Every structure is written in structure tokens, then in C-alpha cells.
């Protein structure tokens, strides 16, 4: 349905987006993950028609939107700090898009009541925006964006200002609503957990380019690049030196190299060191399990396991807490990220 083709944009004379292309299919929720300032929000604003690419196309159902004003696009947008109209009450906020479209008053009342039910805010019609908590305001913003039944929904870090427990709650509601309405959605965030909780597909935006576009489980299993691994916080990214055709030396020992790349001797390559039972790992046989010895430097309690910081900065997780200073043996998988 929505397609972006080769979008370029500079910001203050620095390239911000360097040829971004992706598409969103019907009923699909696509999550755009990237650091702050990476241009995620700019991409959304371009889709909304509030900003324009220097080159590249934004298409919907194959039609170029360059000449379509934002108010004619029928795309809903939900902001991080809600953007509710402070001079209107909850009812008038949600009804805003319907009134613009000259929907009859009786139908507006029915629709607004139904939407308030959908976001669990029954009876909030007459309340003022300023009386609501952050979570409630964001639900009103969602209802307002849903009201005109847009062709596409966009979320710009919608839960960024909310605390953890509220986030989980709202994410569940949001996923429910998106599944029921089948409205395609672009969800922009820098929070990995949030992205994995809501996305049908994940796009990683780094340095103005989409470096990964895949299903969440595949992205998690095969980050395939240093930036992706770092962004997602998968395992440990370390430097290694190639010592022979299939051996690589690191601070933690020398490992077998099984990738398909051609490496020259003494080349520095990035490696991903992970602990084996990784939930999504499918036996594609690319990587090798090896055992290494580590000295424990710090132990942190994390919910159902212990996070162990070891010598050299490696972080692993264990069921039982080791003592600080103890030497432990851990099985790891080593993978080339070059």
C-alpha cells in the first residue's frame, strides 16, 4: 500500500536520509527503529506530507503523493507528547477529524463513544485535556487519530513519555486495535522492547540508511552487522584479529572462523559473542560453540537471572550467581559481523 522509494534529505547541510526505501502492506505494522536524531521522525513527517524529501517518492496504492496536501492524505499521526488541542475537551478532540469531514452530529456522538470504549475511557467526553494523565492523554490521541478511519496510522515514539508498566499495558491495547482495524501502521521508536512487542516487521535505520528490514525473530537471530547488534543489544560485539584462514584471535581466546567472507591475515574484524541457548537461534550450522574462561568482575541481579560482568567487558547471564573474582567456564557462540 505505502511505498517509499529512495528518499534523500539533508538537515543543516548534513545528509540525514541517504536513499531510504521500504513499503508497508495492508494490515501490517512496521516498526522503524533508530537512535534519536537518525531521521525516523522526519520520515514520518514526509509520509504525512508535513515535510518533503529532496529526492525520492512517497507512493500510496501506486499513486505519487507529492502533490497531495497533508489534509487530503487521510493518514493519522500520533505524537510522543500527544499534541492534543488544549482548548478543546476530550469529545471535541476526538471529533475534530469527523467534524472537518462534515459527519452528521448524531453519528459523531456514536463514533466518539465507541472509540472511547475502545481505548477504555468511557465517560471521559466532557473532561479537559489538562485533567488527564499521560497514559490517558495518549489514549485520547490514539482515538482522535482512529476516528476518521485513516488509510494509514503513524506513531512517533508514542509511548516515549510513559513509564514501563503503562507502556506494556498500552502496547497490548494498541496491538489489539491495530489487528482488529487492519489499518497499516508505521511505528517509530528507539526502544527495542517496544519494537519487538508490536512489530510485524522491523526496519533498522542507521546513518541515513535502512540496514535491516525483516521479521522481528530473524532480525534478532541474525543481526548481520555491528550496528544492528549494538542497536538491538544482542550479545557482545568485540574486535578480533584474523590469524589464519579460519582462525580469529580475541582477548577471550582464539576461535574458529566459519563465515563465508574472505578475510586476509591480520585484518581486524568485528565479532558477535553470544551465549548459546538463544531462543530464536535456528540450526543453520553457521556458527561454532566454544568454551571460554572468564574472571567475574561484577554480578547484578536481573529478574530471573544474574547479569555477570567479566574481565574484558564481556556481559553474560547465569542462573546462579558466581562470586566476584571467581574464574568461570562459559559456552559461547562466535559469529563474524563483517
Amino acid at each position, binding site marked *: 500500500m505505502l511505498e517509499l522509494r529512495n528518499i534523500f534529505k539533508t538537515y543543516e547541510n548534513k545528509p540525514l536520509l541517504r536513499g531510504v526505501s521500504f513499503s508497508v502492506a495492508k494490515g501490517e505494522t512496521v516498526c522503524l527503529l533508530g537512535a534519536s536524531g537518525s531521521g525516523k521522525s522526519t520520515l514520518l*513527517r514526509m509520509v*504525512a*506530507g*508535513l515535510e518533503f524529501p529532496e529526492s525520492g517518492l512517497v507512493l500510496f496504492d501506486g499513486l505519487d503523493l507529492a502533490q497531495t*496536501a*497533508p*489534509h*487530503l*492524505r*487521510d*493518514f*493519522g*499521526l500520533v*505524537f510522543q*507528547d500527544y*499534541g*492534543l*488541542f*488544549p*482548548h478543546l475537551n476530550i469529545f471535541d478532540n476526538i471529533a*475534530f*477529524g469527523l467534524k*472537518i*469531514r462534515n459527519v452528521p452530529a448524531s453519528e459523531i456522538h456514536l463514533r466518539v463513544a465507541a472509540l472511547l470504549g475502545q481505548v477504555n475511557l468511557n465517560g471521559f467526553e466532557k473532561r479537559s485535556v*489538562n485533567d488527564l494523565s499521560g497514559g490517558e492523554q495518549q489514549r485520547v490521541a490514539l482515538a*482522535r*487519530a482512529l*476516528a*476518521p478511519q485513516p488509510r494509514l496510522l503513524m506513531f512517533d515514539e508514542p509511548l516515549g513519555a510513559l513509564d514501563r508498566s503503562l507502556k506494556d499495558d498500552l502496547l497490548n491495547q494498541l496491538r489489539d486495535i491495530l489487528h482488529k482495524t487492519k489499518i497499516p501502521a508505521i511505528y517509530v521508536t528507539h526502544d527495542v522492547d517496544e519494537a519487538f512487542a508490536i512489530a510485524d516487521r522491523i526496519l533498522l535505520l542507521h546513518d541515513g540508511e535502512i540496514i535491516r528490514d525483516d521479521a522481528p525473530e530473524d532480525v534478532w537471530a541474525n543481526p548481520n552487522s555491528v550496528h544492528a547488534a549494538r542497536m538491538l543489544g544482542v550479545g557482545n560485539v568485540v574486535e578480533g584479529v584474523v590469524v589464519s584462514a579460519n582462525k580469529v584471535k580475541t582477548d577471550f581466546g582464539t576461535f574458529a572462523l566459519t563465515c563465508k567472507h574472505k578475510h586476509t591475515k591480520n585484518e581486524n574484524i568485528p565479532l558477535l559473542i553470544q551465549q548459546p541457548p538463544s531462543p530464536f537461534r535456528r540450526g543453520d550450522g553457521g556458527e561454532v560453540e566454544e568454551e571460554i574462561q572468564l574472571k567475574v568482575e561484577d554480578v547484578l541481579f536481573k529478574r530471573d537471572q544474574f547479569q555477570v560482568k567479566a574481565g574484558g567487558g564481556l556481559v553474560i547471564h547465569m542462573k546462579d550467581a558466581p562470586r566476584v573474582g571467581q574464574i568461570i567456564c562459559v559456552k559461547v557462540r562466535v559469529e563474524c559481523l563483517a
Partner: protein
Amino acid sequence: MSNKTLNHTDTETLRGETLRGYVFPRFLRFLIWLPVLLFLLSFFFYPLSKILALTFDPATLLNPNNLRNTQHVVGFTFYQAALSTLLTFALGIPSAVFFAKFDFPGKPLLRALTAVPFMLPTVVVASSFNALFGNHGLLSSLIPNPSSLLPTFILHPSPFILILIAHVFYNATIVIRVVGNALSRLDPKLEAAARTLGADSFRVWKNVTLPLLRPSLLAAALLVFLFDFTSFGVILLLGGSSFATLEVEIYIRALKLPNLSLAAMLSVVQLIFTLIFSILYTRIIKQTTTQTAPRFSIARRPKTLREKIFVSTVYCLLFIFFLLPLLSLPIRSFTRLEADRGQRGEVQYGFTTDYYEELFINRRGSLFYVPPIRAAFNSLGYAVITVVLSLALGYPTAYALAKPTRLEKFLDPLIMLPLGASAVMLGLGFILSFGRALASPFFVPIAHTLVALPFVIRTLQPALASIPERLRQAASTLGASPFRVWQTVDLPILSRATLSAATFAFTVSLGEFGATLLLTRPEYPTIPIAIQRFLSQPGGLNFGQAMAMATLLMILTTLSILAIEKLRLNQDGEF
């Protein structure tokens, strides 16, 4: 002031109030208030009661002449104020958009330039317009009339048009600041939200932008209207007594064509209107505080051709409109203009310092019994007395107000009440109350103090309230005597605020025109009075001296304003 501190002081009332670490019994607390209350009782409330008594005398109220006169004057006052407000908005709104939405080189300077007239004394503004447009002004003397260069209405604007333009010149900065602040505080996300919800630009403006700006627009309109409504110096000096607004008519009926009962009645009418506008304004201001500020400035460089044309047009317009009159005054004060009587349009002109030199000479048959420059010394003397008097009265009051108890909450509005009365009204009250005693020159600085005192208190009070009691306690546990505590803790923190308040009182006194005009003795002119007398006399030399005097006053005031701005710590200039 937070609730916590209020409760804290409330419980302390039982034991006697603490102030600066000492225990004050209740009667002592009242003693702090005694000087300022006595001052206000004798010089504000007593004169006010005289005015009220005269107004509500049946002989005044039932006089059909008085009623007809009042009706006529009120009508004209409203008419000129409404027209001035409208014109001020016509210039102010595009300028507010210009400052709020766009970035361009020289923006801070241009913004400061638009604010300068508001802080200048009315006589200086009136003189500037005379220097540019007046009969002896630069435009009419340098450009032959009739001229193909400029149409007559620019070369020789009628006095009424001149008054309107001067009002715009004076008050445009209010619109620029109030509406501009609201515009730049407007969350751009709201507009984006409205557009994605299907609103076109007109609908966005009508349903989102305008409702959000409405309180600020109303507040600015009321404030501008209030200033135009009570304008005195500009109207009297540019229009003469033929333009009878309430203020001008009060002055005329008090001095020129004495009818004190009519003057009293008019000033009560004016007071009522002023109070109504002030109450409305306070109500509106409460609504404007709920808006959220965006985290960064939304101003940017103009991009499209339309934006560029808009920005450069407003830029030039503002630059010319605000700089030309301000420059004309000093230029005219150094320019010799002598039209050859026989040949129309032939003018000789050149550089001269005659007008300044003339100020030091006591000519026979001149307007004063003393060299005109004595007016400057009188002004400085009055200003110094005003500073001392308003600080002496303002300090204890601000101390008491910094830690308000029930007594302070009751007295606070009383202290601010003189703000509602116009200067001319204060003068009238003095005339009614003290009559003959006015021969003493001391009533002028007393009137100036009445005008300056509310501002002085409002400058000192937050500074005093900002000193945490803990600092004083820390100093005394370290062995400082009460005097040392005051010297080492209070004084350094207060010196800025004190200097700022003092400069403010000084500036107010220097430029005060309305009350002084009613109270001053011929032998003790101040600078503004001297300017008015020079301007009301024929002849190029008198005009030139008015220009020279006004230039001096402009320089003095500008220096004071710069000093206040320097002293003001990042405090936002709300009106």
C-alpha cells in the same frame, strides 16, 4: 509564594512574626506599614476622596452641561483609542508573526528598537514626531511642498493622524511581545495534528491557531486600548487642546478653563473605565498561562519566495517606522532651518549648536525667569528626591510583603491602587486637596513617588522573597550579628534589585509629564515642562530648543533603560 511558607508564617503569627530572624510583635509589624500608609492616605486617598466628594455633589452630577461635556469627551476618547488600537494591530500582528516565525540577521537589535518608544517619556516621542512631521520638522522643511516626491498626507499629516501614528509607534511593541510570545509558544505539533486529521490551512487557522491565540490577542488589545485611552502627553503635544480626550479635558478644566467639578467628574469616569479594563485584563491573563512552551524556538530562516518578500517588507517597514522618528529628533536639534520668507521652498540649512547654547542663556523675555538648562537641574533634583522617597517607603513595604500574613494580603491591593489613577488625576487631586500649599516645589516629587512606588515595591519584593531564611540562619550561627547578617547576606543579593528599582524611579521622575504639568510652578520647570512650553510657542528658535531639550531627555532616559536592562537578571519582561 508557596502554601508551605504561608502556613509556616501563619503558625508563627501566634508567637509574633519573625522577620529577618528577629521576633516582631504584631504592633511592630504594623509599624513597618505606618510610613507608607500615612503617605498614601495623605497623598492618594485624601485627594481621591476630595475628587469623589466633588463628583458626587448633586450640583456636579445634575449639571446638564457637565453631563453633555462628559458624554462628548468619553465618546471621542473611545473613538481615538479604538482607532489607535486597530492601527496598532495592523502593524503589530504582521510584526509579531515576523518575529515569532522567522530568523534573520539583526533580529535582536530590531526587536529592541521596536521596544524603545514604549520606554521613552511621552514628551520625547511627541518631540520626535514634531521633529519629523511638524511645521518646523525635517520633512516639511527639506522637501518642497507641494512635492512630487511625497503625497501631502505624509508630508503634512493632520494632527489627528499624527496622534494615531504616535500611538502605534508607542504601543506596537505590546502586540509584538504579547502576541509574538504566544505565537512562538504555540506547539507546532497542534497544527500538524490538525492537518493530518484533514483540516486545510484555513480550518487549521480557524479551529486551532486562532482559539489558542485568542486570550493573548484580547490581552494585547486591552492593554493597547488602555494605554491609548489614558494617553495624555502625545495627544496634548501633537494635537493641542482641540483634541479633548478625558485626560486632556481634565487638564484643561483643572488649569486653563477652570471647572473643577467637571474635571473631578471626568477623572472619576476615567478611573471607572481604567478599573474595568484592568479587571478584564487580569482575567484574560489567567487564561494565557495554561499553554505549554515548545522545547526549542520555532523561528527559522524564510524559505519560499512569499516568505522572503514578507520578511524583507516587514523588516524595512519596521526599521523605517521606528528609527526615523528617533533619529529625526537629534538630527533636527543640530540642524539650522531658516526658510527665506519671500521665496517659498527655498531653505537654507546647516549644522548648528545654537539650540543647545541657547539653553544656557537667560534671555530677557524668554519663557522662564532662569536659563532653560535650569529645568534639567530641577528634573535631576526631583528625580533624586523621588528615588530616595520611593526607596525609603518601598523598602519596608517590600520587606513586609515578602513574607505575607493576613495583614499583607489585605494591604497589598491598596498599595497597587495608585496604578489605576492617571497622573493627571493625581495632579487634580493635589490641586483640590492642597490648593495654596502647592507653591512649594515638593509636591512634584511626591506625585512622582506615587507613580513610581508600585513599580519600586514590585521590583524589590521578589528579590527579598528570594533570600532563603536558611542563609540568614547560617550566617548567624557562624557568629554574625544581625547587622552583619544584613550586610553580608541581604545587601549583596538586594543591591541589584535596589539599583534597578532606583533607576526605575529615576526614569519615571525624569519623564513624568501629566502630574507635573498640573503641579509645577513657572519658576521650577522640569525638562518635559520646558519642552512643552517651547513647543507651544512660535518661532524656529523655540522649536530648536525643544528639540535640544528632548534630545537630552532621550539620552538620559536611554542610559537609564540600558542600566535597568543590564541589572535585570533574566527576568522576563511581562507587561
